């Protein structure tokens, strides 16, 4: 009877596709081998890179796990692309299997020209099995199945323990420092860098050519964290949290409702999890008296920082990788910087006990599928961080209040100490010293007085701003609307009823009212526009776009003041990374400054010129006018707070300009009398692109 059965067969080329092309990175391949070791209940997993910085070097991997029998090798280890099916059984050592498909393993084995495996199972206790994979054999064969892989058996050396050793020799390419750094990071983070798990699995990296990187694997600085947040969510979705200081003293504690405040106490629909987060202040003064050095902690955080996610004790990439801020820690800090950590000064671990695998990993191992369970887990972690930030902020405010209260007492005590010291001085010097101290006191008092007034001025202006915004809502609403509608009706009806007579008698005053309404409208539009929340987001800011918008907004206002505006923008679309509000604030203050100068001086034929130039990577905004120029104040003093030549000026406009420009890493300059006759202010900002 003819054989009518047929099967798919694979060309040897598929091994390259599945190995090198699908899993191109060294660390992912080796991490998959580490997961094999973990599932074999190994406690130690060692990776030795020997002469690996050059082609022809080798990678030797060994573990002390339960080893493999010939059946394990044939039906498990050599089978590629097999996924977990049915119920999950724990390993004999009680671990939840990490699970793998074997593709990363293939990629690792194909790093060299030959991969040799030696393995010693528990039973038979005397045997060692070995298998050699020479990839050249596959190069000369057409189909994968045509290459026989032989499993040999020999007596194991006396005293050798169970486990598996894999030697990948004849590396096709040298391993770079960047790859070793990533591998080190993966190995550190693979199992237990936080020293908390009892079921410990210790990866070791031996890399003589990259000794400095290998060392980082061994060290930890968690004890030096200034704040340790510990939060957990139970099977019922209810959370709790606490924060300890670096001495282990509890600072804050929260129940579920306090953690879940933003969701009104609704339970979290994620698997049970614990979240440990260590935040470092990284200030020289906080490290005084500690064993570790601030620069070492920085380097360590640089290598392993971020919030890492562990499912059943094994790390899931890419959470917490460099650039992977999956909890939006940096974004939250940008929105509200006080008392919040960034990914540069913190490290965290979220451990999920997920025996039923509610969190499902993507096939390409690039993290979890964004299921509701995953989103809820993220929300739990973000809520815990929010709660910690709130608590820290409350403490910071209290601390400031306390410092303010204590300041006079401390000053009195210091004064008493000083008086004591003066009294101890020789009699003739005492009078002189007292005179000098009095002069100093008087000067200091003046300085404090100026600062106090400045703070009050900022508060008053903030209040004025808040009030202006409230009124802007109101004025943009009813009164202007009523005037607009009424004047439009007068115009309509007048034209209809009086025809020619309308133009002669009414057109002019009616037009004047309509124009005035436009000018009035700028007040509310400008105020509301300046407080737009979106403008404070840190984004790519198109500078010419913002300048055009500001100019458009000010146009009726400038027309109303007979100011002729000349706008000369350079060619291109220069942009920075910053906030639109910052750029608006610069230009708005400069325009206001010129308009005030015109008014003060009574300038006729008013000209305001806004021009931009792009030179190399610097963008310059120059605002010039034909007002009186900088007079009655030294040029260098115009940026100081409170310095003004206007009778009711605040003296803050140019200070705000300067401070904002500094925030954008730029510089300011001024010309007392430019070609137009008045002042010209220059703002130079480094560009992100053009």
């Amino acid at each position, binding site marked *: 009877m003819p054989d009518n059965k047929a099967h798919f067969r694979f060309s040897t080329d598929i091994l390259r596709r599945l190995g090198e092309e699908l899993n191109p990175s060294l660390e992912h391949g080796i991490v998959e081998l580490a997961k094999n070791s973990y599932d074999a209940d190994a406690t130690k997993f060692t990776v030795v890179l020997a002469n690996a910085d050059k082609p022809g070097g080798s990678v030797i991997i060994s573990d002390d796990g339960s080893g493999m029998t010939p059946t394990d090798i044939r039906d498990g280890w050599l089978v590629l692309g097999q996924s977990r099916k049915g119920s999950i059984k724990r390993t004999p050592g009680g671990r939840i299997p990490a699970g793998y498909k074997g593709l990363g393993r293939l990629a690792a084995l194909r790093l060299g020209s030959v991969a040799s495996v030696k393995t010693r199972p528990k039973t038979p206790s005397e045997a060692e099995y070995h298998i050699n994979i020479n990839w050249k054999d596959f190069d000369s064969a057409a189909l994968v199945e045509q290459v026989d892989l032989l499993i040999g058996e020999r007596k194991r050396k006396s005293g050798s323990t169970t486990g598996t050793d894999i030697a990948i020799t004849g590396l096709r390419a040298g391993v770079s420092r960047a790859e070793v750094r990533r591998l080190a990071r993966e190995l550190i983070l693979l199992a237990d860098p936080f020293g908390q798990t009892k079921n410990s699995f210790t990866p070791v990296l031996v890399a003589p050519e990259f000794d400095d990187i290998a060392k980082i694997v061994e060290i930890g600085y968690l004890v030096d964290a200034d704040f340790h947040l510990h939060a957990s969510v139970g099977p019922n979705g209810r959370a709790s949290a606490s924060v300890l200081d670096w001495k282990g003293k509890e600072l804050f504690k929260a129940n579920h409702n306090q953690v879940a405040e933003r969701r009104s106490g609704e339970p979290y629909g994620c698997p049970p999890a614990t979240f440990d987060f260590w935040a470092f202040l990284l200030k020289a003064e906080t490290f005084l008296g500690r064993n570790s050095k601030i620069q070492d902690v920085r380097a360590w955080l640089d290598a392993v920082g971020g919030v890492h996610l562990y499912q059943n004790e094994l790390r899931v990439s890419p959470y917490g990788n460099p650039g992977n801020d999956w909890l939006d820690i940096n974004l939250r800090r940008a929105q509200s910087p006080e008392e919040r950590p960034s990914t540069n000064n913190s490290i965290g671990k979220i451990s999920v006990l997920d025996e039923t695998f509610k969190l499902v990993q993507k096939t390409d191992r690039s993290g979890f599928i*964004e299921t*509701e369970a995953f989103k809820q887990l993220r929300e739990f972690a973000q809520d815990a961080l929010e709660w910690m930030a709130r608590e820290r902020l409350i403490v910071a405010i209290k601390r400031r209040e306390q410092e303010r209260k204590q300041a006079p007492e401390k000053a009195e005590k210091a004064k008493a100490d000083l008086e004591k010291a003066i009294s101890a001085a020789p009699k003739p010097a005492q009078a002189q010293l007292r005179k000098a101290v009095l002069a100093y006191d008087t000067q200091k008092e003046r300085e404090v007085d100026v600062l106090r007034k400045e703070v009050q001025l900022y508060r008053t202006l903030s209040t004025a701003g808040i009030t202006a915004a409230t009124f802007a809502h109101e004025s943009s609403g*009813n009164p202007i609307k*009523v005037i607009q*509608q009424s004047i*439009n009706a007068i115009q*309509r009806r007048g034209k209809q009823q009086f025809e020619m007579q309308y133009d002669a008698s009414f057109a002019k005053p009616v037009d004047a009212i309509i124009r005035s309404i436009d000018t009035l409208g700028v007040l509310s539009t400008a105020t509301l526009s300046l407080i737009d929340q979106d403008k404070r*987001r840190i984004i790519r800011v198109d500078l010419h776009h913002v300048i055009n918008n500001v100019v458009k907004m000010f146009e009726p206002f400038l027309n109303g003041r007979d100011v002729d505006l000349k706008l000369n923008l350079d060619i291109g679309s220069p942009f920075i990374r910053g906030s639109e509000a910052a750029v608006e604030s610069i230009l708005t203050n400069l325009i206001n400054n010129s308009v005030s100068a015109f008014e003060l001086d009574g300038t006729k034929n008013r000209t305001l010129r806004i021009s931009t130039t792009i030179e190399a990577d610097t963008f310059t905004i120059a605002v010039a006018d034909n007002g009186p120029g900088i007079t009655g104040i030294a040029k260098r003093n115009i940026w100081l707070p409170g310095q003004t030549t206007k009778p009711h000026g605040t003296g803050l406009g140019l200070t705000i300009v300067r401070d904002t420009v500094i925030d954008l890493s730029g510089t300011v300059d001024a010309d007392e009398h430019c070609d137009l006759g008045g002042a010209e202010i220059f703002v130079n900002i480094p560009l992100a692109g053009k």
Partner: protein
Amino acid sequence: MAITIAERSIKRISIIDDDARSRDSYELSVEDLDLESVSENGPLDEALPDCVRAVSERADAAICDYHLKVKAYSSFNGAELAAGFYKKQFPAVLCTKWHTAMIDEMRQYLRFIPSLIHPAKLDPTSIRMGIESCIREFEGQYLAVRRPWRALVRVEDILKTDQGSDFAYVVVPAWNSNEVVKLPLNLIPPEILKNLSGGSRLHAKVNLGAAGNEELFFEEWEL
């Protein structure tokens, strides 16, 4: 007098604004259209469907201001009410001086507001055109600025705030590849939203003829 648009006779126009002087000022334009105005002195019915029914029984169309909640006049804003009118095929023009924050709030209703008029532009002509564009849309005839087209939408960023006002920042390349549009997340169906992040691309029906950001609406999302 009455005006007839697509065989629909409009005689009375309801004026909805929480400020009496504003209502009086709107009446001037209605009078110049030779139509009768019905001033809604308020407070309006607590439930929106009740208010829609009551107003539509008293008038044939409405001019509605956006700010209705400043005083104790209404429990909903003008955009919600105008959209409620539209869904019951009752023509209404929404009068508002929009600014960014207001557009954020209004975006979800824009699909149902064919006629958005700035107070400075509200006059007999714009009122008539606004009512006409509503009635035409009820019959499936869209103005070019309102016709929805299936378009690619690119998500630039998703921002969740502590205040619970969550937004997506998107770009509609077929409309303007350089302008970012802010959308409240509740505009996107949850089953689609759960798969979105910065960089995602999806499709929606968008009125690509819209002249400005404040006129854009989105519906019928597809991933």
